[in-house]
Structure formats: structure tokens, C-alpha cells
């Protein structure tokens, strides 16, 4: 069957993108969701045109969410301009300086999904696929999870990026649905990734946010083109970056892995029994490790060997 080419955001001109954002909204497919975004801000138009260049347009289906990322009404549009994120008549975060518009859009979309998408089991974890199976990477902020995620997705012979932050599991089939949003890097990680992968496209830096400086990496085209392909959980990893440390692995007992996933889930309690069954299933079919590391070149080959074993 000849593959149908789906029109992407990149198939629109800059003017068309701006025009859509300004009027009824630019409809973009992100994993299983269609999101309708409205904005009059130049940074958001730039972001959609560049970071979201290869995302399919979702003009042919109903949008799951309609969001607004824009200047607030009144003075703060002009005087020290701010940005707000609005969803369903609700503004979840306090306004930010307009220079952080892109970060605000990403946070807002995360908020929208992790508070609302209770048709799925949701984890605060990165997820990548290799040879048809995927790895969950959970970790506290500062554990180096996003850097490792970017490394795996951008290296030679890359892993397929499913998600960098919000992992979506179907509660009926226990498989992972890709979300494929841009990878969010913080502070020093931005330069590390830029140095290691000069070809990677990194978006505008948003300075002075609650999380320091933030920038987003464009998702590799191959991952995006396979946005509708689910994957099977195979490994759970708790990485911990520690300066100067030698790579050290330790197995994670099942009991701890269950607790870890429950803790890292946004809606484990909300889903009740279905959530518990899904976590149990994931843990029972996964290898589980924690690893302390400082050198990505040392860590990655070891990880791949363990994963493939």
C-alpha cells in the first residue's frame, strides 16, 4: 500500500502558521492527542514553525484540547509583557515574563495532559524504544534523565524517542503510546547536548524560569513519523548522575520498582485497580536497574548491552 503523506506543520508557510495561531488555532497531532493552539506571540509561531516542523497537522479530526498561550489582557501586554496559558477557561500557572512563552506552552501542555488524560495511566518518566521494546527512565530533577534521554535519541544508531517526560500507558493493553513532544533541557544540559550533537536542533533558550534556563530539542524525524506505533515495556531504569562517579549498576527489586512506578505515576490512585494491574504487569515483564554515572560514553554501551541481553 502506498504510504500516504500526511501534511505537517512544515508544509505551511510562516504566514499561514501565524494566521492559524491568530484565528481558529493551529491543530497539531502530538502522539494520541490532537491539540489546537492559539497564540498571537511571535515566539510561539517561531516554535511551531521550527520545533514542531515535522508534526502532522490534525485538521481532519476533533481536537482533544484547545489551549491559548498569549499575553494577558490589560496592561501586562505592553508594560513588562507577560505570558499566560489557558485551557478550558482555567489558567493553571501564574503569568510569566513573555520571554518564557515557549517554556510556558510546554508546561501548560504537560499540565493539561497529566491532570486530564485519565483515560491512560500516566508516568513522570522518559521512554525510548530499541528493537521494538522500550525503557522507562524515572528520576528526580537533576538526575540527568533528560540529558540521557537526549543522548539516546540523538546518538548514532539512535533509540526511538517515545517521550521525554510524560509516559502514556494504555490501561487495557499495558503498552506505551508515543507522545513525542520536544525534549526539555535545563541549564548545563543544554550546552552538553549541543556540544555532543552539533546537528541537533535546539530551540530558543528561555532564561530565568522557575527551573533556570530551559531549551527544547526537536524530536528526530524518524521518531515523529512513527508516532502511532506503540511499544512494549522491557526495562525500568533509575539513573542518577553524580559528578566524577564510575558507572555502577544495581538491580532494583520488584517491590521497589512497583513503589517507584506508583510514586512516579500522576494518576495511579485515580485509576484505582486498573492502575495497579498495569503497574504490576509492567514490572513483571521488565528488567529493573538503578545506575550511578558521570560519563555518557561509558554508560550508553553498557546500557544497550544490558537492555539487549
Amino acid at each position, binding site marked *: 500500500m502506498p504510504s500516504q503523506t500526511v501534511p505537517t506543520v512544515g508544509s505551511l508557510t510562516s504566514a499561514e502558521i501565524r494566521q492559524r495561531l491568530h484565528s481558529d488555532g493551529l491543530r497539531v497531532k502530538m502522539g494520541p492527542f*490532537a491539540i*489546537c493552539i*492559539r497564540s498571537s506571540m511571535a515566539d510561539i509561531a517561531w516554535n511551531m514553525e521550527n520545533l514542531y516542523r515535522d508534526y502532522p497537522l490534525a485538521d481532519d*479530526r*476533533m*481536537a*482533544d484540547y*484547545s489551549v*491559548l498561550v498569549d499575553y494577558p*489582557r490589560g496592561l501586562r501586554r505592553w508594560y513588562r509583557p507577560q505570558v499566560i496559558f*489557558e485551557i*478550558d*477557561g*482555567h489558567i493553571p*500557572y*501564574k503569568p510569566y515574563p513573555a520571554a518564557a512563552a515557549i*517554556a510556558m506552552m*510546554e*508546561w501548560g501542555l*504537560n*499540565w493539561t495532559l*497529566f491532570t*486530564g*488524560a*485519565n*483515560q491512560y495511566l500516566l508516568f*513522570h518518566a522518559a521512554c525510548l524504544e530499541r528493537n521494538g521494546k522500550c525503557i522507562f527512565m524515572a528520576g528526580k530533577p537533576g538526575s540527568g534523565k533528560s540529558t540521557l534521554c537526549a543522548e539516546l535519541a540523538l546518538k548514532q544508531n539512535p533509540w526511538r524517542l517515545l517521550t521525554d*517526560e510524560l509516559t502514556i500507558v494504555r490501561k487495557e493493553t499495558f503498552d506505551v503510546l508515543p507522545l513525542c513532544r520536544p525534549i*526539555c533541557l535545563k541549564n548545563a544540559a543544554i550546552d552538553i547536548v549541543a556540544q555532543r550533537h552539533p546537528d541537533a536542533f535546539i530551540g530558543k533558550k528561555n532564561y530565568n*524560569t*522557575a*527551573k533556570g534556563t530551559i531549551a527544547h530539542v526537536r524530536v528526530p524525524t524518524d521518531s515523529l513519523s512513527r508516532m502511532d506505533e506503540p511499544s512494549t515495556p522491557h526495562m525500568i531504569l533509575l539513573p542518577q548522575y553524580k559528578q566524577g562517579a564510575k558507572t555502577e549498576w544495581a538491580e532494583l527489586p520488584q517491590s521497589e520498582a512497583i513503589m517507584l512506578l506508583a510514586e512516579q505515576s500522576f494518576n495511579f*490512585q*485515580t*485509576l*484505582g485497580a486498573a492502575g495497579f494491574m498495569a503497574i504490576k504487569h509492567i514490572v513483571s515483564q521488565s528488567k529493573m536497574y538503578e545506575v550511578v554515572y558521570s560519563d555518557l560514553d561509558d554508560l550508553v554501551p553498557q546500557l544497550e548491552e544490558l537492555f539487549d541481553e
Partner: protein
Amino acid sequence: MNNMNLVRESVLLKYWNEPDRVCYYSVPEWELFLRQARSSRLAGQWAYRLAQQESFDQIPEPAQMALDAAWTYSEHHQRALMWEIRQVEKVLHNLDCVKILLKGASYIYQEMEFAQGRLVSDLDVLVPKSAIQEAEKTLLDNGWESGKYDPYDQRYYRQWMHEIPPMVNLQRGMTIDMHHNILPETSRRHLDATPLFDSAVALTVPDSIQKENPWAPTVSGWRSLQDVDMVIHAAVHAFQEGEIDGSLRDIIDIDGLLRRFSETSSDFWTRLLDRAKQLGQTRPLYYASHYSHEILDTPIPDEMVKPIRKMGPGLFARSFMDATVFRALAPPTYELRPFSARFSSFFLYARSHYGRMPLNLLIPHLWHKAFPKDKIPEPDNDGQPMG
């Protein structure tokens, strides 16, 4: 479109009584419908209504998913509330007084159909004023803490309000509001709560709990307000005490109660009007039945239409209230909330405050709220953005 139709003809409500027709909405209608349902916190109740429809399959898949998500969330919410109700019942077991569940907690505990999928933010309980100190102490000894730290707030509740400061369960994070009346002490419509306690009805333990523990007693330690008092309380809450802003849910409760009780009791409406007169709450009852009928077509018996209209305000106040209430209740479109809606909400907020306290108390109160002295900060619940 006139103001009434902003609410009545909204995609959210126009087929509230014929849910089947929602299944045939176009894609743009569905998008707006879900936006309005989520913003009014009515998505769970809609999910329940739509799941009963034969044409459920006609609904676009993303909307089915959204309804599934809303239903899952509301189920969790009700499960947690039911658990909280049982824990409070145990803790207050030895407190020798009438303990009444109010509002959402009561509808859900009584498994009323209109409240399927309803969200409830707090657990509201009513006990006699003579028992409230003991009740508070018992809760404080058993894992609850007062949610208000500011000494001014403490005094505000204890001296003037009909409830003590909300208490939060430290483990579960759920808030309980302990009331001793349904209106503030300072309210112009303040009433003696004794008749409410005298006519409260005993409750049986809900089926869902009995199924889990067949050995547990079937008589609950909780009571409910009697039917007419439930309606009056809902009316007072919506039109005298609370903020009308975003309280479409209150109208839906009032409609649900009125429909339910008209069916279960033949002299319900006569008793309702008599009771409202007895308790001095005819005006809130007028507003409740008026708006519920205008927005959701709640049936009102012909012979009651005139007596109810008599309980209303004069023509001028009536048209002013109509203009503001409908505007404040209008579900959101894609624009940020228009000025007229925000103004209407503010007006209704000010009005309910004016009803709550005489001006000589209200002005210093609002002054304090605007310019607090030595404010002790409340814990910030505003989550940090992720990522």
C-alpha cells in the same frame, strides 16, 4: 442572543434533558462542549448521562476518551469522598449529637442518580452549635488540622460564620467544613437551625459499602436534611451564601433535587413553600426555582407558579438579577472571560457578602482582606511547573 440563552442554549446545557441529542453534535460542537463541561466541572456528570445512551457509539472517539477520563476521575473522587465520610463517622462515633451530611456529600452518600459523576470539593457536615467544639477537638485529636492560620481568619469564622475554620486531614488532604447552621450568624436571613435538626432523617449505609462489608451495620451514623430542607439549603447556598461564579453545578443540583422529590412525594411543593416561609428563606427559594426552571426546564406545578413569583423581588431587582446571573453562569467560549461576565460575577459576589454581614462589619472585613496586617502566609498549593 439574550442573556438567558447564553446559558440555556449553550452546547453544554441545551440537551441536558435529552442527552441522546448530544451524541449527534458536530466536531466543533463537541470541542466546545468538552471545553465547557470541563471548565464547569460537569464532565463526569455528562459522562454518566451519555454512557446510558444507545447512540453512544455515534460520539467521536476523542470525545469518548475524554468522557472516559472524566468518568474515571469522578469515580476516584467519589470513592475518596465515601472513604472520608466513613472515617469521619468512625472518629465522631462517640459524639452524642445529630450529625448531618450536607450537599454533595449527602447526594453521593444517598446514591442519588443526578449526582452520579459529580465532583465534590469538600466534605460538608452540620452538627448542633452545642456540639461543635467537641467535634472540632475530636477531629484535631485524630489527624485533622485547622486549614486557617491567620488569627483574623480564625476570629472571622468563629465569631461571624456558620462554620468553624475548615479542617484538613493531614494524611489524605481532604477538607472538612463543620457547620452549625446553613447561614452565617451575621446574615440578614439568619435562622434558627433547631428545626433542621429536629426533622433530619436517618440514613442507611449505601449499597456500594454494604456490598463491600456485608457484616457492617446497615444503619448509618449520618443523617440527611429532610427533602424540603435539602432544597432550601441548596438554594441558600447558591443564592445567598456562595459565589454564583461557576456554580452551574448548584443549579444542576437544585434541578436534580426538585425533579427527584416531586416524584417521591405528592405534597412536596406545598411543604417546600411552607417550609421556606417558616425558615424565612422564600427569596432564595424563588431564585433557585426560577433559574432552575429557566435554564433546565425544571417542572414547576401550575398552581405553584404564582405563589413562587410572589416570593421574588420587584421588577427592577428581578431584571437586574436576571441580567447578571445569566451572564455569570454562561459557560466559556474560546475568548477569555468577557468583562461583562467578570463584572456580573463580582456583583453577585459583593451581593452575597452584603447578605452575609451588615455593612459595619463587612467594610472592615473587606479592608482587612485587601490590606492584611502581619499576614501569615498559607501554604502555597500552586504546583511548580513540571519539566
